[in-house]
């Protein structure tokens, strides 16, 4: 039986190399990232937990099949986020449940803000609870919602967002700036005032 201690002290990229030689090392990568990826799928898709788990399984199996295609210059996390995102989009297309809303309190936990240096993040942290963040995001276009989730809820850098969305960094910056503006506008509609609009 493979144990967690076999994964300790090894980077993701090292584990990819080891998993190509010994299948068991893939366990480390799956156990390391499954929760984060599952939460990410739930945030961007509004799928049920069962569906999200199916998407997650599909994503990890696809990643395993394509392990030889993994670019060592990329972070494994960016790669698996990208695969999970693509699988989620395929799921949307098949099931057409993209706009389904989340309502359970468990799901609202997903929208806890990660404290960051960004002014918007700080101000949001002070003024909004999870329910409000979820309600604001719900009313935004998918492209804005998606980038805000990656930046503020998943704490991804511009480079990582660029690698996940497969867009140039400049486009990511522009999209993020517009998304923040749209977020503030939507927040104002819901009665949340921001100083630096």
């Amino acid at each position: 039986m493979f144990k967690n201690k076999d994964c300790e002290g090894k980077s993701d990229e090292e584990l990819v190399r080891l998993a190509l030689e010994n299948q068991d090392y893939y366990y480390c990568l799956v156990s390391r990232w499954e929760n984060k990826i599952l939460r990410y799928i739930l945030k961007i898709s509004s799928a049920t937990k069962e569906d999200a788990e199916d998407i997650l399984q599909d994503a990890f199996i696809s990643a395993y099949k394509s392990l030889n295609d993994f670019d060592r210059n990329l972070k494994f996390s960016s790669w698996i986020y990208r695969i999970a995102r693509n699988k989620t989009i395929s799921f949307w297309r098949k099931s057409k449940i993209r706009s389904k809303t989340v309502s359970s309190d468990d799901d609202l936990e997903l929208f806890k803000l990660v404290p960051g240096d960004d002014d918007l993040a700080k101000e949001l942290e002070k003024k909004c609870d999870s329910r409000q963040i979820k309600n604001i995001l719900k009313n935004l276009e998918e492209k804005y919602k998606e980038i805000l989730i990656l930046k503020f809820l998943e704490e991804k850098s511009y480079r990582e967002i660029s690698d996940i969305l497969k867009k140039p960094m400049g486009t990511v910056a522009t999209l993020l700036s517009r998304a923040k503006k749209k977020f503030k506008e939507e927040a104002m509609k819901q009665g949340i005032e921001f100083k630096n609009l």
Partner: protein
Amino acid sequence: MDKLTDSIINKIKKEKISPAPKWIFLAKDYSIWTLFIMAIIIGGLAFAVILFLLTDNDWDIYKHLDKSFGEYLLLSLPYFWIIFLGLFSTVALYNYKYTKKGYRRSPHLIIGVNILASVVIGTVFFYAGLGLKIENIFADNFPYYRNFTQHKLDVWNNPERGLLSGVITKADDKDSFILKDFEGRMWEIQAGGAFWGGRVIFQKGERIKIIGKKKSNSIFSARQIRPWINRGRGMWKNSDRGKDIMKETRRRRVVNSERAQAN
């Protein structure tokens, strides 16, 4: 072991899933890069033909055609090759975007670099004479190509407007020689005092363009004589292209007369 991780790993083991071999991904990457490079080279060839057609065009004769320079410019642009260049630039952009890190570059930058590459490669090809060669290959092998591009033939087959072209068939006297135009009609060319421009060589078989005045149905007074191809960029000299042009002109004449009879 975590339940979800367990189910993923068990599925991999149960279904004996294994990573696809590296060569499959390498083959895919190399195919994309090959297509990208090919698209750039083809774009370069298209640009070489564009350069050739633009430099071969006589930009000063629009007045003979009662047109403004703008109208003449619009008539003269090699649209076929511009579309061709645009098409292969799009193919190159599409392929680049599908390379592993293609998404990291802005599409504007890719288009810019792509066009620049086609311009540089195309200029090299042009100076190597490939523009003319490709134009000839298309003109000789694709019957409908000339309908798009042979505006030159129509322009220089206008004796009433003072524009005539053809092949020198008798070259005894530079001041008076015989020319067979591209429709097969014979002309006596009175060229005493005419200006011989470009690198035109006075010899039998030479294809020329003449600016002057029609005196009768078989006599044309020349004021300026130019080579059919504005030389310097091409290696074409006394090839069989003149015969091809005559053949094509005759074909067009037959088609036009059949159309006229049908109407």
